[in-house]
């Protein structure tokens, strides 16, 4: 459904993404991973039309994204970005904003259908009971659920998420990722998300895009991407990839600098002994 062809993108005159091409099929769960500054977030911002590509094309169902009316686009693609800090909003008011793309030109208030969509979204994400609370007084995990609820109120087919698990404790991380997996499986929602945590990416995504220096290093299933060669090449640090004993998915183990030195020292000794 989403197709990116030879995308070139950047801020001012400096190109950050060059010649990026990939495709996302309906119902897929895609993770974008890569080191800091590799262009992950820029890619997501290009997909959500915040920055104009300077070359190439992004198309949705074969139609150039730039040609689609913003309101219509917002009905099929919703975005959960980082660092939103809404003030003076209750949860219900905030989630209701997700219905804006459905409002007519001179319509100022929601219809019954809008109300239902808002409450369905709040129920799905489990924030129904928090409806009257103010967002600024909620914890990070609750807020993230509310942000996702707003995106769901848009009734999208594709949801783009920018590090939805950032700054959350492990319980909330799993909670959020389980929720997104459920939406993907039960409602056929197509998911594209930027992730920092390689293990979450390996655990939940069908397909991973490993981005490095503004271009795609490799695309494939988690098993194909999360191996020590590719990860070490792109991230420039030693890792060991094992298997998660519970799920059987690849699990990336970090190697601290000290251990690395010890290993090298041992290697030298061995070498000297020979």
């Amino acid at each position, binding site marked *: 459904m989403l197709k990116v062809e030879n995308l070139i993108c950047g801020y001012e005159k400096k190109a950050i993404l060059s010649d990026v091409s990939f495709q996302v099929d309906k119902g897929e769960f895609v993770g974008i991973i890569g080191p800091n500054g590799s262009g992950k977030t820029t890619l997501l911002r290009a997909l959500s039309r915040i920055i104009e590509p300077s070359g190439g094309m992004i198309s949705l169902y074969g139609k150039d994204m730039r040609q689609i009316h913003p309101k219509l686009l917002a009905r099929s693609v919703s975005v959960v970005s980082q660092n939103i800090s809404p003030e003076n909003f209750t949860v219900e008011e905030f989630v209701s904003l*997700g219905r804006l793309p459905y409002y007519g030109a001179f319509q100022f*208030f929601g219809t019954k259908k809008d109300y239902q969509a808002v409450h369905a979204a709040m129920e799905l994400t489990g924030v129904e009971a928090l409806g009257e609370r103010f967002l600024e007084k909620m914890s990070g995990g609750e807020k993230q659920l509310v942000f996702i609820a707003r995106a769901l109120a848009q009734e999208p087919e594709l949801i783009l998420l920018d590090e939805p698990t950032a700054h959350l404790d492990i319980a909330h991380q799993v909670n959020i990722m389980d929720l997104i997996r459920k939406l993907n499986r039960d409602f056929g929602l197509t998911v594209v998300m930027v992730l920092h945590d390689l293990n979450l990416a390996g655990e939940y995504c069908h397909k991973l895009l490993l981005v490095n220096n503004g271009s795609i290093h490799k695309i494939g299933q988690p098993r194909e991407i999360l191996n020590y060669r590719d990860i070490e090449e792109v991230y420039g640090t030693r890792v060991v990839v094992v298997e998660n004993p519970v799920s059987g998915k690849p699990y990336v183990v970090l190697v601290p600098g000290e251990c690395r030195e010890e290993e090298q020292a041992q290697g030298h000794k061995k070498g000297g002994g020979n």
Partner: protein
Amino acid sequence: MDRKINRLVLVLSVLAAMLFCAAVFSLCVGSAGIPLKRVFQLFFEGRGSTEYNIVFDIRFPRILLGFAVGGALALAGVILQGVFRNPLVEPYTLGVSGGAALGASLNIVFKLYRSSVLTLPLFGFIGAFFIIIVLYLLNMRKGTIKLQWLLLNGVMISFISSSLIMLIMSLSRAEDMHGIIFWIMGSLDEPNWFIIKVTVVMSIALLAVSYLFCLDLNAFSLGEEEAMHLGVRTEKSKRMLFIAASLLTGLSVAVAGMIGFVGLVVPHFVKMLTGGDHRVLIPASFLSGGIFLIFCDTLARVVIAPMELPVGVITGILGGSFFVYALAKRRSV
């Protein structure tokens, strides 16, 4: 149904009642106190008595103008605070008011007002309009408005115009200087019915235009990018809202001078009471601005009657202390 509608109706009814009370209060008190009963009698008696003249030819026009100017300033404040997501922005921040003051000062120095009283607000409005165009051209490069640049440019233009006004004042004779100072201090004393009608009609028309963008403003309060994600055409909205807020500011400064504080304090206060939803906030701020200015103007008329205080003195002292009080109370809760 959307529960917001009930909220809106409730808030607006309360404010309409308050507006009525403020207007009646303002009709009754003054250097010549006229009891409420008498005001109603006069309404049916019609023309003829001095009391009628005081109530309907002197006090009533001031109330209308206070309503329109107060509403316009508060509305401009709400719009700009919403677009910039900055609680310190107010109608006078963008320099449009400076342009109006500059236009009026030039008019006073060259004594153009002697030909017709209408030229004074006209010059004010031309000055304001000139600044709007300058700001628009400075910030419209590549078809997008960079809000931070717009704000900085506006503040700089503000400084430039106030320096130019000072230059004009230093070069002018004492009598003109007084004229300029009094004009800048602001007053709702406007004898010309035509100007009052134009101000009322235009401010209400701009209220209607701004209301079309109330949902866009709600989306803007999450940030520009979030608004884009929700399908808002941000560039178009920003442009229209900037123009509406500038026209509102230019209009009120051209007619009534620089009445301070209404555009800063009223939006904050209304936000504290009704929350951040612009569907309620926009009309509620307009009405509250009107009520606040009518009330302050009445006080300005009576405190040292038969002399008059500049209304800006009252709005500043009353608005400022009220606001500090509300903030302190809110924090202690």
